[in-house]
């Protein structure tokens, strides 16, 4: 079993759902990113690193701002490789890489996944790639022994669920809302229906993301049947406000503990 799947098992054996914090690489600065990331990873089951992209059309204002700030400091693919490598030397928590497809294509699919796997990445999340649009991507990630994670949304039809899970080896990233990333006070009720429809088609773990902001939303996700929760914007918002993002993660942990 891959390190990514094992992380879900381990969390479950500890009476929780998997905690998956996200930070944009290089935000607020390359060095401070490493400090925050390490602190969060220590209290998490998986850790998601974002490779910033100039046009993040799946992201809300908070992650947009973080991406712009990282890019303005010259954080590009090579720098993210370096940051990932340094991070992976200091933590055993499996690292995921989230990025839009264009930086992958510009670097070369095979080389991109191979280099990130060597740097210590265990899985990839690609929010703007319906996997059947370019099957070579999932294949190249698999050859580099990276787990693949694709998104499904409340609007996804049963046919799309079948197609997308067919390319997934890590977990299903269930988007809680029709919308972009961003912390919310409540998740829509329909998320339960999506998780049930996904679970009817696959044995893969399902993590809920978009809108997870603290204990209440994490609990809602667990009640909806999630095996894990992803939290990103709420952490970055805490950093922006000069607060400790681990407090947000701890609140999410309380909600995700049974």
């Amino acid at each position: 079993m891959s390190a990514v799947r094992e992380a879900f098992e381990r969390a479950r054996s500890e009476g929780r759902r998997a905690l998956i914090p996200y930070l944009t690489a290089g935000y607020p600065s390359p060095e401070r990113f490493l400090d925050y990331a390490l602190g969060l990873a220590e209290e998490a089951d998986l850790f998601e690193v974002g490779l910033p992209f100039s046009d993040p059309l799946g992201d809300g204002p908070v992650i947009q701002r973080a991406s712009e700030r990282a890019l303005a400091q010259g954080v590009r693919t090579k720098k993210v490789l370096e940051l990932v490598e340094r991070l992976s030397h200091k933590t055993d928590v499996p690292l995921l890489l989230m990025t839009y497809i264009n930086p992958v294509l510009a670097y070369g699919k095979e080389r991109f996944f191979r280099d990130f796997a060597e740097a210590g990445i265990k899985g990839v999340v690609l929010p703007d790639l319906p996997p059947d649009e370019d099957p070579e991507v999932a294949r190249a990630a698999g050859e580099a022994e990276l787990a693949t994670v694709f998104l499904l949304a409340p609007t996804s039809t049963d046919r799309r669920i079948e197609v997308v899970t067919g390319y997934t080896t890590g977990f299903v990233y269930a988007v809680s809302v029709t919308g972009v990333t961003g912390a919310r006070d409540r998740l829509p009720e329909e998320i339960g229906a999506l998780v049930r429809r996904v679970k009817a088609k696959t044995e893969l773990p399902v993590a809920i993301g978009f809108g997870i902001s603290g204990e209440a939303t994490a609990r809602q996700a667990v009640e909806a049947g999630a095996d894990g929760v992803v939290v990103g914007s709420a952490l970055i918002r805490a950093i922006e406000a000069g607060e400790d993002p681990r407090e947000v993660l701890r609140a999410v942990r309380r909600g995700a503990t049974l």
Partner: protein
Amino acid sequence: MEGFRFLDFPVPDERGRFGPYGGRYVPETLIPALEELEAAYEEARRDPEFLATYRRYLKDYAGRPTPLYFAERLTEELGGAKVYLKREDLAHTGAHKINNTLGQALLARRMGKRRVIAETGAGQHGVSVATVAAMFGLEAVIYMGEEDVRRQALNVFRMELLGAKVVPVSSGTKTLKDATNEAIRDWVTNVRTTFYILGSVVGPHPYPRMVRDFQSVIGQEIKAALLEKEGREVPDAILACVGGGSNAIGAFAPFAYEEPRPRLIGVEAAGEGLDSGHHAASIAAGKRGVLHGSYMYLLQDEDGQIAPAHSVSAGLDYPGVGPEHSYLADLSTVEYAAVTDEEALEGFKLLSRTEGIIPALESAHAVAYAAKVVPAMDRDEIVVINISGRGDKDVAEVKRILEERS
């Protein structure tokens, strides 16, 4: 001619690919909406009633067919081929954009969507969407970069006068690229109730196909008018400016896939020069990649980050070019050239002075390149320049630039 027809073109394929280009690189949330849109469009284009309604609005509302005008003094001045102008500047709202917005608004109405959204750069597409939304009684929200809101205050007022809500976009470069990101984010969020009226032959499938089909009225009318005036449908060359590429594809498509084929020349914006790094010439100086849901030629750095575009003409100020153009460039079916801001300003003045027609700065790029190729052609040859829009919107900006220089 009985009017516009939905033509069958050999591309895209069922997956929305023009060769390797196009496709659907969007968040999964939108895939069902794109499938629904594709099915609705497919059904509409086979429905004689939809066709009749669309033709009626093209004629009575947009004022089509637009004239194919023999530019006698420009022909004399250039001293080569006979020059005709396709007068899209005379269509309602002053540009070719209305061909597409009418088609998509009719489709939105047919799909029962009461809210439409759009991106706009200089505001031409935004005004066009606001116009048809007013006419059909739809709610319209237009995303526009903060930088463009400032530069194009008059168009913002126009859209508001027409009842649309204009949302300034402050992310990224604060221009068309970022306005498009924001429109897509709105669509992801409100996909169940909202129709996204995309303004060019870019974006995820089926947009590049659908916008091309609606805009192909331009090429279809060129054929009919030339037959009447010159006894033949096919000219020797057609020139059009290319940003995202909708006016060009509309003029070219009815000619591009059959023989005999005229020289088809797409003119990109070379801005301050292709070597300056400040231009919008995605084909001449870009690399392939994905932006706004489609695989196409793009301006980007070596890490795949999208590079800002530059052109004196806001309508060409976009860092990508539609997938069909990317495909036709690889096949060499269409020649792509690029002219600088400086040359475009000369084209702007040339057409104003010789024909009493002030073209949009976008269209002035096509005029400027025509001034280079026409003199070398024979007098019995025929050239058509697509005047995609009128230049009233640009007069203040051109005045400012010319005064700055003197």
